[in-house]
């Protein structure tokens, strides 16, 4: 079994030379940007994306999500902060190609990343946070076993109101128990 291959997607190296153009195109979608970033929505040029990707430290696992059927780049996923001694990591995922929303591609990539986090990196827990109102993402995280651990109240400001940042976490033993049920 390839630890980085799922049922619909595989996690591949990000190639700044070929992928920057596609990732830059996603930044024109401001609604997507708000779900994926905390910085203000901002259309970025391919050269900027390429420079950012080139600066990415090698020890921080960040992957391109590619479809198994036609090897198309549809999103990014990664463990962006790893607390080595605590064996905890924060994860993030974004599906930039809207036609792949709500079809199980994100959940599939998420399952692959969790297997990598627990079976390859031997982490004890994976953490994440999600913007209040991002129901699609929250449902996907719950499907993978994450549970609600709290909310940072009014952490974000958009459209004249404040929104909570919802924290979720998954322990290694919870993830292992899920595997046995399947």
């Amino acid at each position, binding site marked *: 079994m390839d630890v980085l291959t799922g049922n619909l997607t595989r996690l591949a190296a990000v190639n700044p030379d070929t992928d920057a153009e596609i990732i830059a195109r996603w930044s024109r979608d401001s609604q997507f940007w708000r779900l994926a970033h905390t910085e203000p929505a901002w259309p970025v040029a391919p050269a900027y994306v390429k420079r950012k990707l080139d600066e990415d430290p090698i020890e921080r696992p960040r992957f391109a999500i590619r479809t198994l059927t036609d090897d198309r780049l549809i999103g990014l996923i990664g463990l962006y902060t790893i607390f080595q001694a605590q064996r905890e990591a924060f994860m993030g995922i974004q599906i930039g190609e809207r036609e792949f929303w709500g079809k199980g591609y994100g959940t599939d990539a998420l399952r692959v990343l969790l297997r990598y986090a627990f079976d390859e990196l031997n982490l004890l*827990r994976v953490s994440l946070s999600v913007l209040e109102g991002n129901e699609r993402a929250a449902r996907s995280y719950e499907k993978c076993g994450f549970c609600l651990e709290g909310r940072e109240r009014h952490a974000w400001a958009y459209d004249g109101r404040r929104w909570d940042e919802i924290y979720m*976490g998954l322990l290694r033993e919870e993830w292992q128990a899920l595997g046995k049920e399947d």
Partner: protein
Amino acid sequence: MLTEQLFEGKTIRLAPPDAERDAETISKWSHDPEYLRLLSADIAKPLSPFQVKKQYEEWEKDAEKHNAFNFAIRLKEDDRLLGFARLYRIEWTHATGSLQIGIGDRNDRGKGYGTEALRMLLRYAFDELNLYRLAAPTVEYNTGAIRFLERAGFVVEVRRRQAVQRDGRRWDAVMLGLLRDEWKREA
């Protein structure tokens, strides 16, 4: 009042960090594992004065980008260094940030210096930087810090279950938050 002092308290002062002057003292504090473990879940390790200076340079880089505001806490009476207070991870678009306070020498704890520093730092965050909310991360075992923050109006918002491993046990990472409206000015 616009003319009221922001950096001069009753017994303490918030001063600019001065690594040249203070590196020896801060290095000494970093040899106390209890201090380091109460301060954060980061790996505890002693720092040489040289390493302290390097760390302060890193903090200053954030300060230059205005993503952080770092202060030394000094005793007014004799200008002695007591600890540090800082606002960091500031997100201007959302008017949010995090805070951290440390009193280095255990003989200086429990004397109200931290409480005074917290009151002044909150005033700076809300009245000068105009932040909307602040977060403060700590660990389940640091019940002193949780009580200290709750007295100023902070509430526990998030518990990352079993996120910290220490002495063969797993502890929750506790995240507290304070909104400007809930801030107890005089606490």
